[in-house]
């Protein structure tokens, strides 16, 4: 019984390792499993019963080496050693507890399917498979992580995705050599193009529809076992401002919302800096009446507008972070305390001007317009250097800051695709799905920037012009 000892050696130090002997003389079986991973009722009621019936109805996979056996046990299988046959088998033990599919909280949408990914890779894959019963959907699973041996799945649609993109993703995944992959975030950080950049170069989502939309455009999705966040590459800047709703609602609504988001992003980035530049450097550029009233409200404020704005914006960020980690009921209180009480009190104490409170409030709301959380936080963070620039060089500094950000954006790449495309270099065909989401019949081709094969995605011939 080399196996018996070997297994006991390797796993015996854990208390949840179990070894049982069952059976009669002619049919004696040894069971090895971790009771933290298996469902005991299932084993007793289903597995054991069936095993001791004469015929061998249960499809068991043979295990040939001890290493395999150890791995199988660690993954939640039950390993059965048959004395008579002197071989080992592994059997599913139906034991892994997992969260049921729920509505995604981070990415809620008004229109479209509600289900979100969960932590189990298999469940997640089934969510995709179920919607795309197509043999061209290829799923490649590999294990990453020296210790965690996390399963990472690569999803793409053969015949649509450009092989260069796929190859690039594969090569980058091959380079990962790390202890633990506990979330897709680790994979994201390893394979992203530039870690200096504040902008996310890989999109993550909890919505199966978003993933499907992406892979059907010719992108690649990366799923990590244990993480409900699925990565999508390559990503362009404009994608971070799009939500699935845009496609499901009628095009006018979708376009209007996208425009509002774009304006919101600009406001979130520039408004506080513009406020500083105008108040401290160029009051000549605001209308006389407004200049007078702002001047009157600021009369008691002892700080320069830069200090005032940075203090308020920092407070805002703190409030937001505080609200994020608290239980829902409490976080509302924090919002009220922060928004109303601090703002009101600060104005009354003459520390900040009411105009700034308005500015900060507008900025705060604008940041929430950006659907991708990581993009919105990038904009929020960039606001501070811009404020510093505006505070030291006025409008000129603000313009330079904007140019620097733009220079950075156009130089970024995501898996060989220009991050700022299709805006630049011009891919005018793709502009139909950029700031404006054109009516459905106009979106009959896949994005040009991805160079996907089989670029047609609909045939309009049967659709009459007017019904």
């Amino acid at each position, binding site marked *: 019984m080399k196996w018996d000892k070997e297994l006991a050696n390797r796993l015996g130090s854990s208390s949840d390792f179990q070894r049982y002997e069952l059976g009669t003389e002619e049919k004696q079986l040894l069971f090895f499993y971790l009771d933290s991973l298996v469902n005991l009722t299932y084993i007793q009621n289903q597995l054991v019963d069936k095993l001791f019936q004469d015929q061998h109805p249960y499809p068991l996979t043979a295990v040939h080496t001890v290493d395999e056996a150890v791995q199988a046990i660690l993954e939640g299988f039950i390993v059965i050693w048959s004395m008579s046959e002197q071989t080992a088998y592994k059997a599913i033990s139906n034991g892994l507890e997992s969260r049921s599919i729920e509505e995604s909280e981070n990415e809620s949408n008004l229109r479209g399917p509600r289900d979100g990914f969960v932590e189990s890779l298999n469940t997640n894959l089934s969510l995709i498979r179920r919607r795309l019963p197509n043999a061209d959907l290829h799923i490649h699973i590999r294990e990453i992580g020296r210790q965690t041996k996390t399963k990472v799945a690569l999803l793409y649609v053969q015949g649509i995705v450009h092989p260069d993109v796929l190859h690039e993703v594969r090569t980058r995944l091959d380079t990962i050599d790390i202890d633990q992959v506990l979330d897709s975030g680790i994979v994201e950080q390893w394979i992203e193009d530039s870690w200096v950049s504040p902008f996310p170069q890989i999109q993550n989502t909890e919505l199966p529809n978003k993933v499907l939309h992406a892979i059907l455009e010719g992108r690649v999705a990366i799923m990590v076992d244990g993480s409900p966040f699925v990565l999508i590459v390559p990503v362009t800047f404009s994608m971070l401002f799009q939500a699935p709703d845009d496609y499901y609602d009628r095009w006018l609504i979708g376009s209007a919302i996208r425009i509002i988001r774009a304006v919101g992003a600009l406001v979130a980035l520039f408004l506080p800096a513009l406020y500083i530049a105008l108040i401290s450097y160029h009051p000549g*550029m605001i209308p006389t009446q407004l200049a007078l009233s702002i001047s009157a409200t600021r009369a008691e404020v002892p700080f320069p507008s830069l200090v005032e704005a940075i203090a308020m914006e920092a407070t805002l960020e703190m409030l937001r972070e505080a609200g994020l980690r608290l239980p829902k009921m409490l976080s509302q209180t924090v919002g009220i305390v922060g928004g109303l009480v601090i703002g009101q009190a600060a104005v009354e104490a003459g520390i900040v001007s009411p105009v700034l409170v308005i500015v900060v409030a507008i900025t705060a709301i604008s940041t929430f317009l950006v659907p991708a959380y990581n993009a919105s936080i990038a904009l929020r963070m960039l606001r501070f250097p811009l404020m510093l620039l505006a505070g030291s060089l*006025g409008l*000129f500094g603000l313009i*330079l800051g904007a140019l620097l950000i733009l220079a950075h954006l156009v*130089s970024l790449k995501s898996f060989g695709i220009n991050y700022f495309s299709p805006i630049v*270099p011009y891919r005018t065909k793709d502009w139909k799905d950029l700031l404006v989401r054109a009516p459905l019949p106009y979106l009959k081709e896949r994005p040009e920037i991805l160079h996907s094969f089989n670029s047609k995605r609909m045939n309009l011939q049967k659709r009459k012009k007017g019904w």
Partner: protein
Amino acid sequence: MIKDKLTNTQMALQMFAAMVGVGVLSLPSVLVGSAGVDAWLVILLAGGYAVIAVSIMAYLGNRFPGKSIIQYAPLLLGHVLGTCVLLAFLLYFLMFVGTIVRMSADVTKLFLLDLTQVEVIVLGMLVTSTYLILQGVNAIARFNEFIQPLALFALLLVLTQTLRETDFGRLLPVLGDGIQSVLQSFPSVFFSLLGFEILLFLHPFMENPSRGLQSAFLAIGMTVVLYALLTILSIALMGAAEVELIEYPALAIIKSIEVPGSFIERLDSIMMMVWVPFAVTSIVMFHYCASLITSQLLGLQDHRVVSLLYVPIVFLIAVLPRNVLEVEKWSQWTSWLGVGLVSLVPLSMIVAYKWRARRVSST
């Protein structure tokens, strides 16, 4: 992987970026000073000349596919002379960058930051431009592709606000002083169109080099139209005599607009937003070409180190002139050098090319 190459649009906008710079603000004044109300005619004329010059350059570039002037100048003119020409270009580019930076810093100081040291403003512009240069020619192209149409659009939008008060009769009489005065002021105008010579250097980066000429025409056309429009509008708004006296007519006409009821009532801020990118991209183009020449002459793989090394030199050129008039003098020298290079070098190279071709065919 999918290769980055300059598209035709990108090339046109690169050249547009190089050509439109500080000139936008002061050009009408300079022009009207020498040609009176016929200033806009002179611009068209200069545009014609630029078209001829650029045609020669494109012809040369197409004869040597995949090579820029840095490679074929030594081939055509001999090693020593070729290198000398390239060094002259280098000097011209560096001087140009220096003077543009200084002039734009002066304008910024005048309109936005009265008390801030000019060095700080110069540094701010150089940081921005250098950061972009370090990203390489394709990133520069994408940057231009984004910012130039946007800036142009904003500028035109602002200019439409002036139309209410224009009196286009002020442009009369056309050719009232005869054609001579127009011709005489021609050289002083040609400076403002300099910048299309970057075609010589960027030609091999193009996706489709045979259509470089088309891009060049587009760029020259856009620039000429923009300049002519600005000149015509300034004259129509203020009259030739007044335009001549104003240092920056383009800004003056925009300062005279007020949009009542909007959050930003005065549009000069928008003009600055338009104009700073124009200046910065001009700097970027010339600075990039300068570092390209050096790195390729020295046989370096990368232009980055060189472009970083040029920053202090450019900075010095920018801060050395003592006052506005001295800056103007420097810029005039630079422009003459540029005009000389642009007119003589391609021409002499064509002659050399023809001569060589004939010799090859005769043997």
